[in-house]
């Protein structure tokens, strides 16, 4: 299938194998250098001679353009994305070249690893960031378009460069998380991306909610990170290493100890915040509502997926049951958290009038669905021979579904936020009156938004339906593995099912609730009259239109023809569970 290649960091082949990251780093350098090129001079000390050194000073016309950083960033991310998609095509052919980066001179110390799983997650992160970068190009030119004629008055290229630098550092952090084979490396990547996103939330300076949301997000985020880091340090204290495979080995020989469990609980807090699981999600609605929409979309998709990667590493790689254990130790815990999270998210979304807050809560609910799927993976001890492949297949199916859900979520969640981003051009989006009568203003946009809503609600044949169906089916499949003698089964309609089945039921009930608030957006768009001051067609913007078109293609395309992506996700799931 795939072969494993061992390289040292920064050795000869390293940059080739991590071409996407290399491109990102180069893009970052370009982003710092190019907008600063100008007619700057350097005075030779002690003389009056000024030597031009092309840096600083009055910028050239080309390098001073406010839209230049956006183009650099889009091109960088696009190149990285293309490279990664090329890797994913290899995954599809089962010809992935797996690469392991180990410490110089010691190949037992693992640092990074490129597997089908990490490649998929990288592509997800970069894809989401690409959409954001693309849409921000429009956003920062068109926001003031109504009031301020001059672009440079409010938005000079310095500010644009700052924004896109943050996006690229975010990208680097996220890819590091995807690749990390060591929890410390993972944490560094997590914080790199995390800090970038705190600032990106607060970047929406025109709105007072922007800085407020960013501040809250930062405070709650740093508190959770602190707790998570504390858990990490306890883990190190216990095992003497933070390397993932070594921890997994240590966990399989665990005795009557309290330390690793405390560490596990504390780390769950840290990652729980990232995926916005209840009750660590409170800052999320404020942050989403305050941030400008593309960044809110980023938090809801890539940032959440990043948290999920962390959870995968800890829950699925390190602490998955081995040896004689039955189920994972966190099974009940995660099940309870999932149930609370999805119900809480949906109930809160039900009454939210602000579409951005509604989407924030819906993203909490989606986190609950994902955690439910994650719970199902922990039900069986896959190493136990008596389960005879059935449990393994079921666990793999549910993990595949979860990964598929993560990927397609980027399409329709981001799409919805981008549509709202378009509406933000006309002023802040605070309640659903901004959406009312959209079908009369821009019919196509209303239809597209409705498609995203339907996909979020899980209506066939859209990808949101397929992903939800696969997750629910996967959970039921796991629950229905022959559980004779496990003592964990409940009898439902005469079938012996593991209790994890009830999470699937809860998902179905929650989906039913969620249909209400998703469809309400449709009602508002198609049946209400446009609000005063928002009755002209939504301004046309090229880049955002492209980004939305990509999202729409993904939403519909993966729904009717999801097989290739499912195949890739299956390989990724296999790589993760291996």
């Amino acid at each position, binding site marked *: 299938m795939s072969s494993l290649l061992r390289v040292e960091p920064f050795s000869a082949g390293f940059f080739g194998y991590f071409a996407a990251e290399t491109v990102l780093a180069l893009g970052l350098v370009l982003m710092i250098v190019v907008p600063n090129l100008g007619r700057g001079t350097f005075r030779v000390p002690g003389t009056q001679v000024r030597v031009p050194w092309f840096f600083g000073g009055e910028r050239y016309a080309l390098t001073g353009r406010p839209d230049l950083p956006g183009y650099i960033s889009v091109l960088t991310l696009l190149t990285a994305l293309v490279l990664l998609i090329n890797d994913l095509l290899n995954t599809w052919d089962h010809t992935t070249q797996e690469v392991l980066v180990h410490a110089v001179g010691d190949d037992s110390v693992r640092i990074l690893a490129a597997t089908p799983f990490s490649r998929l997650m990288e592509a997800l992160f970069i894809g989401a960031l690409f959409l954001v970068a693309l849409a921000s190009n429009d956003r920062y030119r068109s926001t003031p378009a109504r009031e301020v004629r001059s672009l440079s008055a409010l938005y000079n290229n310095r500010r644009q460069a700052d924004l896109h630098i943050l996006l690229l550092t975010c990208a680097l952090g996220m890819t590091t998380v995807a690749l990390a084979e060591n929890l410390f490396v993972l944490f560094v990547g997590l914080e790199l991306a995390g800090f970038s996103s705190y600032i990106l939330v607060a970047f929406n300076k025109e709105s007072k909610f922007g800085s407020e949301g960013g*501040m*809250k997000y930062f*405070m*709650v985020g740093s*508190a*959770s990170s602190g*707790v998570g880091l504390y858990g990490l340090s306890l883990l190190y204290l216990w095992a003497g290493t933070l390397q993932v495979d070594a921890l997994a080995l240590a966990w399989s020989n665990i005795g009557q100890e309290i330390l690793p*469990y*405390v560490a*596990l*609980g*504390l780390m*769950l*807090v840290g990652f*729980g*915040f990232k995926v916005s699981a*209840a*009750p*660590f999600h*409170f*800052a999320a*609605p*404020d942050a989403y509502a305050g941030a400008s929409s593309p960044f809110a979309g980023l938090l809801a998709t890539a940032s959440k997926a990043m948290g999920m990667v962390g959870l995968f590493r800890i829950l699925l790689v390190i602490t998955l049951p081995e040896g004689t254990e039955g189920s994972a*130790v*966190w*099974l*009940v*815990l995660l099940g*309870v*958290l999932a149930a609370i999270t999805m119900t*809480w998210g949906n*109930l*809160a*979304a*039900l*009454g*939210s009038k602000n579409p951005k807050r509604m989407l924030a809560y819906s993203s909490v609910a989606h986190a609950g669905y994902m955690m439910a799927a994650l719970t199902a993976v922990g039900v069986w001890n896959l190493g136990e021979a008596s389960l005879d492949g*059935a449990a393994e297949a*079921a666990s793999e199916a549910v993990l595949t579904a979860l990964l598929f859900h993560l990927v397609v979520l980027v399409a329709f969640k981001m799409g919805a936020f981008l549509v709202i981003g378009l509406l933000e051009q006309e002023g802040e989006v605070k309640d659903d009156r901004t959406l009312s009568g959209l079908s009369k203003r821009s019919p196509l946009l209303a239809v597209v938004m409705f498609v995203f809503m339907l996909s979020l609600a899980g209506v066939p044949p859209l990808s949101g339906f397929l992903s939800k*169906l696969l997750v629910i*089916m996967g959970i*039921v*499949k796991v629950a*229905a593995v*022959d559980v004779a003698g496990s003592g964990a089964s409940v009898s439902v309609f005469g*079938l012996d099912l593991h209790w994890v089945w009830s999470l699937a039921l809860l998902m179905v009930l929650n989906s039913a*609730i969620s249909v*209400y608030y998703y469809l309400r957006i449709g009602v508002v768009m198609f049946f209400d009259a446009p609000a005063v001051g928002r009755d002209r067609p939504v301004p046309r913007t090229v880049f955002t239109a492209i980004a939305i078109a990509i999202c729409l293609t993904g939403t519909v395309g993966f729904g009717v023809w999801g*097989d290739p992506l499912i195949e890739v996700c299956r390989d990724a799931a296999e790589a993760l569970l291996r």
Partner: protein
Amino acid sequence: MAGDSYASGLVVPDYALLIILLPMLAFPVILLLGRLFNGQDWWKGTMKEGGLLALPVMAASLVCSLMLIAKFIGQTTVSDTSTVLNWVNFGWHDAATGSIQAMSLDFGFYVDHTTIMLLFVASFLCLLINIFSIGYMNTDPINDNRNHRFYAEFVLFCSGMLGMVLSDSFLWLFIFWELMGLCSYLLIGFYYERPSAAYAAKKAFLTTRVGDVFLVIGLAMLWNLFQPYAAGQDALSYAVVFDGGHLQSIADAGKSGALQLAMGFMFIGAVGKSAQFPLHVWLPDAMEGPTPVSALIHAATMVNAGLYLVARMFPIFAAEAMHGAFTDLAFIIALVGGITACMAALIAFVQMDLKKVLAYSTMSQLAYIFTGLGAALFLANALDWHDPSYAGYDKNKTIVIVAFGAALFHLFNHAMAKGMLFMASGSVIHEMHHAHHDVHHHDHHDEEDDHGHDDHHDDFDAQSMANMGGLASRLPITATAMLVGSASIIGLPLIGGFWSKEGIIANTWRVAVDHDPRFLLPAFLVLITAGMTGFYMSRMWFMTFAGKPKSEVAAHVHEHTPWVPIPLLVLIPMSLGGIVFASMKVTKYLGYNGKQLDMNLIDGFLYEMDHVFVNPGAGYLLVLTYIAILLSLVVGPTVAMALHGGALDEGQKAKPWIQPFINLSERVNARRHFDNSGLADSTLATALEERLYFDAWYDAACEKLVAGFSVLAATFDRSVVDGTIKGIESGSQSTSSSVRRLTTGSARDYIMMAALGTLLIAVILWGVA
């Protein structure tokens, strides 16, 4: 017939998907463009409001169909079901084994001789209808600015029909079947602002719904029967259902009765779709759609879906394992056909509306095919034709093949002839309309009122034959097409319909005489219907085209609408060429997968002539042939001529091939004219005009039974269902606000909640570990 012949390795080429996909994709395109450019000049003029967008699509679809047909026409085996779309994979819990079974629903193609024939009929007629509509729809101002809706629904309909024909599973057949049902509803209700059209659409939809419910039940039973043998496949796919081994297992398990019941329920679905007794009431009303295109859909293409469904069951009836198990169902099919054939022909006697005559004729002819299918299925099921060592093997096999082939051949002939007839009737009505408009305009020349064309919607009925007459010279192409079509339906010797109709009558009688006396009833009914067909079709033609114009309008009719004559000219040879098809022994080709078309035309011709007119074998069949010819060709038309024949106006002369018929009718009319007013006032005639009171009965039954139940259901819905939902909703809303109240907006509280969460984690972990 061995089971394994249903799965050979032939692969359907990829372009076959285009046949379905192109029209399906054209649907949103036309709709969207229509919405965007509605009313603009280029859209109306150049694009014909979407008509010229649909045309290339349907043409491409036809080309792909023809390529597919050309690929398979020489084959003697069935193409394999080649999966082109993996739709859904899912697991389900098998109670028997207690494990999760994988299950997939794939879309694939199934191509055999029945498919090829229907594929040709559907794609060919759809293209012609498209051409016809461009002439018909776009020249009528009442359709202005909404033709895009018509064309969009039309292409979607076509993709439904083509998909149904090509699909490889009863499940997909059902899906496309329902797609057609939807489009038929939309098209019948095209003039939804007219209460009668809205009512007709609702009626058609609800009536076929009754059949569809049974179809779903039947399919569910079928799925249940075959699921144990499906091995993860779609249990309704033909590959699974037609497999001889599976059928043998079912017979061994003693479940052939259940299988018969399942197919019986499916047959009820076919009864609804093909407008057979007792679910026939919707078809005449369906003529409310845009004249006559929707009528054509409901005559030449969609109603064939029910026939196709029954014909698809042939392999099950023919299976060796099921020998003699399904004779009852075959009889019911033939009986329903016989009753409908006779009843519809009777009602057609008194119809004055040109399209309604054709509608009832459709019903009657479809019923013929059902009778023929019933007889063929009986023979396939009851005769011993599986074992080559049996003495009568060859003879029996030929009998089965010819019986089945004759029914399918009649389907082909009827579709071609009826397609032509409906388009010709559309041409008549359209030109009548125009003439009426001209005449009217002329009369009120001074009154320049602003009502525009509102004022010609007075009580003049352009569809009533009472206003026509003498059109033979004024509409030469239309009159010729009508003549050929009617001749084919009547069964004029050597023309298309003759061969197949004789086949159906002969085979039904053969079953009745040789095997099962119960068949005497349908056999007798179809025989006398032959004579009745002769009458009502001739009556229609003579009333419309012969004699003097019965209204001022009819005297001013001209044939001048563009596009309309094209399909007529194309279809005339299709009906006239029946003899060529017959000489190719097309009945044998259609009847059995092992046969090839016989290209030796002279021999084939001599063989057929010898067989039909001199029949050296069974004497009673020969007698029967001549009785049928006598009834349909002599008795029926003579009575019609005596009642409605007559010479044209002075100075009007029809085309030389039409004039003899007019002259003949004039002579018969002069000599044998009788007064039928006594008959016309009889209770029978009144009952026929009221369509034998079926509609009244159904209305009364609905009012008495269903309406009461509806009130109950509505109350239940309002108080219990809505009450519960609203309760849940208000409950959720209030919970929602209390949950959201926890989001205070203060970061301190958020961290506090996170701390509580940490505590929760600690407690749960403590409990577990």
